[in-house]
């Protein structure tokens, strides 16, 4: 479907289609201005934004190389790279959206979690690994000292918290905001991002999601990628500065975030554009932790330097 030719200069009229994907939810948030306004990425370049609702659909498009650019979890990017799927980390966009929400449980420091029942999302996923890592760094054995149970998706967990059926939940944004808006009892008690910074002494929280670019596409159309990254960084900055306006766009474009909470969710989403070179140390730190704790989540090894675009 990419009608490009080997030498773009030879056929300038040729249109280039750029498929950009993200999963419904926070990963799509920073992109909302682009989704809404579809800024030009160059002459004859047509960008198509697909916000996938089903992780399987997004996965299948990445595995079959159908996407040129996509916003996905960083560990998934590393994993795909390690498996030989031709995607590179183009830029960082989100630095952690994980919070512990309490629904009546008296918790305000990590030690308070000991002996508690906590619900989290998706056993074995990177967010789970990070949570377990932070627990164990605080001297809490995730398998013994707490009673962890899981929901398949954040929606169900959010519903449980809203209904007061669980007293502690480790939730991602924007579901945190949803819960807070619907259940006045609920409050954020712990911020996994801050805890990460505290424990690892980094200046950045964990590198949760990133933008990947198809390697072949990047090689063929570097200028398109450059333009995209510029627009993307714009978009993220704009969202951070104009949460209300961003919320309006989110409402208009339905990216799976309940419009009422988008505005309050944005500050907690830690959206920040960072080029891949700049982000590399933080990303590697993050991947290193995953590597130690659960190597499968990043494909069994640390990605080499070519991972970074």
């Amino acid at each position: 479907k990419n009608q490009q030719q080997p030498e773009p200069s030879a056929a300038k009229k040729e249109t280039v289609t750029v498929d950009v994907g993200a999963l419904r939810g926070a990963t799509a948030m920073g992109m909302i201005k682009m989704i809404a306004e579809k800024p030009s990425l160059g002459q004859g370049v047509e960008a198509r934004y697909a916000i996938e609702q089903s992780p399987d659909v997004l996965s299948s498009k990445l595995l079959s190389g159908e996407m040129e650019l996509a916003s996905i979890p960083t560990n998934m990017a590393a994993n795909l790279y390690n498996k030989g799927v031709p995607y590179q980390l183009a830029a960082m966009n989100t630095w952690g959206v994980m919070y512990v929400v309490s629904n009546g449980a008296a918790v305000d420091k990590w030690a308070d979690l000991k002996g508690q029942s906590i619900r989290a999302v998706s056993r074995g996923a990177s967010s789970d690994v990070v949570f377990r890592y932070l627990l164990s760094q605080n001297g809490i054995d995730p398998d013994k000292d707490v009673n962890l149970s899981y929901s398949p998706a954040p929606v169900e967990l959010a519903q449980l918290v809203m209904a007061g059926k669980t007293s502690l939940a480790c939730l991602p944004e924007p579901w945190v905001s949803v819960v807070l808006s619907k259940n006045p009892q609920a409050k954020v008690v712990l911020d996994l991002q801050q805890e990460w910074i505290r424990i690892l002494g980094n200046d950045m929280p964990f590198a949760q999601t990133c933008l990947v670019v198809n390697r072949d596409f990047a090689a063929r159309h570097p200028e398109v990628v450059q333009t995209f990254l510029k627009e993307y960084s714009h978009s993220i900055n704009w969202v951070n500065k104009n949460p209300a306006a961003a919320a309006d766009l989110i409402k208009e474009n339905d990216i799976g975030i309940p419009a009422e909470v988008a505005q309050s969710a944005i500050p907690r989403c830690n959206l920040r554009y960072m080029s891949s070179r700049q982000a590399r140390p933080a990303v590697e730190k993050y991947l290193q932790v995953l590597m130690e704790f659960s190597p499968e989540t990043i494909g069994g090894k640390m990605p080499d330097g070519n991972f970074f675009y």
Partner: protein
Amino acid sequence: METSSIKTILVTAASILVMVITWHLLALMLGHEYILPTPAETARQMIILVSSAGFWPVVLATIGRGLLGFIISLGLGVILGLVAGFSKAAYWLLQPWVTVVRSTPVMSVIILAIIWFESNLVPVVVTLLILFPIIYGNVVAGIMNINKELLEMARMYKVKTWRIVTELYLPSILPFLLAGASTAMGIAWKVIIAAEILSQPQLGIGTNLMIAKIDFATAQVFAWTVVAIVISFVFEYLIRLIETRLNTWS
């Protein structure tokens, strides 16, 4: 007949009433609309849904997929079932494939399905994976339970094989086939919606149900659920009509 069908309707209505009341009480008990909305709230949402412009295309898309999956399952189930019923060798040849189709988790092959088929067809394929074994199993059981004496008679009178199949085997397995078909038809809607949730076609009850779910519009989730149940009711009724039409002889 007249009074008994009135009775039937009354009993069914009473049963539905009890169900709705139970639902209402449970909803009150739970007290959280976003977990279990009341029937009234669901009804309100349903009215909004049904009167919205996009309703029928969505419903028809799902019905189309369900029917397609069902018909392919029926065709494959009957043909392969007959083949397996006829020949022991064919049975044992097919058995591993049927077992694989029957027990392979959808999750394991969903990515393959999405890559190989377009998102409109994935639910059809997934439905096939559940409905086909139901129909196949019942057809094979029907053949195993065929009246061997009638078969001997037909062979003795040198009736052509295709006549034996269509005029002796098919009517014999009909009760099994109808049981399988009616169960399959009932389950089809649940399965097709689950598959639509996985593959997210543009139009589909599953797609809408998932969107409603993510938006915590639980009443809307239940409204779509009721739509699915109503579809199931309608097709169940159709199958029952076919059943009585086919069974004039006993």
